[in-house]
């Protein structure tokens, strides 16, 4: 598979119109994450109530893959129990992205997942 096939419509759409992009000023939890590949930084904001993700937003900059992944994952975790988030795997993320990404770009695809894995430790 060549790389241009990695840039599927689904990824490009979310890159163009990222969902939940912004800031939650009264967030219960804020997590910064740096992509070691490029130094790009995303910040996630969470509202957590009765052990559930009530609201989520993210801001920052990144490549199409990391932004699409953050957008899709933020949609996916809304209203989910915090205790169940640790079950999300890298494979799940790729499924949500609609297929594989180039091996060198897995760090970008999993940037938001890294944030989600840090929720339990922080909340």
């Amino acid at each position, binding site marked *: 598979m*060549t*790389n*241009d096939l*990695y*840039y599927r419509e689904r990824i*490009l759409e979310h890159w163009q119109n990222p969902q939940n992009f912004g800031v939650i000023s009264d967030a219960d939890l804020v997590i910064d994450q740096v992509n070691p*590949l*490029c*130094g*790009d930084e995303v910040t996630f904001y969470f509202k957590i109530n009765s052990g559930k993700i009530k609201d989520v937003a993210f801001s920052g*900059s*990144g*490549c*199409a*893959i990391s932004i699409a992944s953050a957008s899709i994952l933020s949609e996916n975790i809304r209203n989910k129990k915090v205790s169940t988030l640790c079950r999300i795997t890298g494979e799940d993320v790729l499924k949500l992205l609609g297929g594989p990404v*180039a091996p*060198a*770009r897995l760090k*970008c695809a999993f940037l938001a997942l890294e944030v989600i894995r840090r929720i339990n430790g922080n909340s």
Partner: protein
Amino acid sequence: MKVIKADFPILDKKVNGRNLVYLDSAATSQKPKQVIDAISDYYRNNNANVHRGIHTLSVEATEAYEGARKKVAGFVGVKDSSEIVFVRNATEAINLVAYSWGRLNIEKGDEVVVTVAEHHSNFVPWQQLAIENGATLKIVPIDSDGELDIEAFEKAISSKTKLVAFFHVSNVLGTINDVKRLSTIVNRKSKARILIDGAQAVPHMPVDISKIGCDFYVFTGHKMLGPTGIGVLWTRRELLSQMPPFLFGGEMISKVQLAKSTWNELPWKFEAGTPDIAGAVGLGAAVDYLSKIGMENVRKHEIELVEYAVKRLSKIKDVQIIGSLDPKKRGGVVAFNVDDIHAHDVASILDSEGIAIRSGHHCAQPLMEYLGIKSAARASFYIYNDKSDVDKLVEGIEKVRKVFKR
């Protein structure tokens, strides 16, 4: 240049079904078969440890290793080859200076001057040393054309300045510093020592260290057709003699007693442990190869390629070139961005066409912040590239625009 291409076996490789177009030589260069063969030949025929053995192989290995040192010295205009210390890479060379000379000479209240466009390797060691010893790190800006702000440079240097460290050729902007002029300014205004990062200069243009007027000059083998793992620190003899060893152990000692030790002569005082002998031999072969072509010719070839690349890239809609557009003012690197498309996405799509470029912050985050960009794509050229490689890059960028509907 067709003949030169044939010397590089890797250039026959297919990447994603396409012929490899290698435009990432500023990260590391490819290796000609002459260098690969020299390393292989050394291991097949001469391998032994250096400087200690009495047996024939050890003598051969020592001759090969020390012969490489003489070749490297001659290549950069250094008459006394004992001023050439072999290290792992340019980063290690700078760290050696920072740990050995720096920690002895830089004290509270002193000033270290660097530029905003340094590679992290010539920035972080000084930043950390300043933090550790209570010195001040002064950072000289660049102008909108990517050139060093000479006025600010001059102003930054005072009697408090102990060290001035700057690049010869920028790995992002391609800017070529007039290192002789900068050194003259420093030497006129202060007694500060001067360190020049030549990692992007020595592979691409004639460099005569003896004519610059600096105190330390560093470069690395793998960017100049040599293998990874071998780099060079040049320092004036009187400084090297005063500097304490950086690493202790075998090879670097003269005599070891229970309570004290004395140090070997230069340059071995700074080469503790078994060195990268094969790496030095490979670097020696790379120097032979480049000398045969002639560094003037290498430079001329790259000016032509950069001129062509800048001309073609600047005609593509949405492409912004970073740094000067004058090919005579820049080395063989062209950094650019395509509209708001992230450099990693540009690089991934080019990779699908078999085109290798670098993307990201290029280990120059202070510069990226200064330029107000998060990342950049970078194409860099060497002797084995030609105009058809630039043409393929241009086609690849058109594909990037198409995928991202630009």
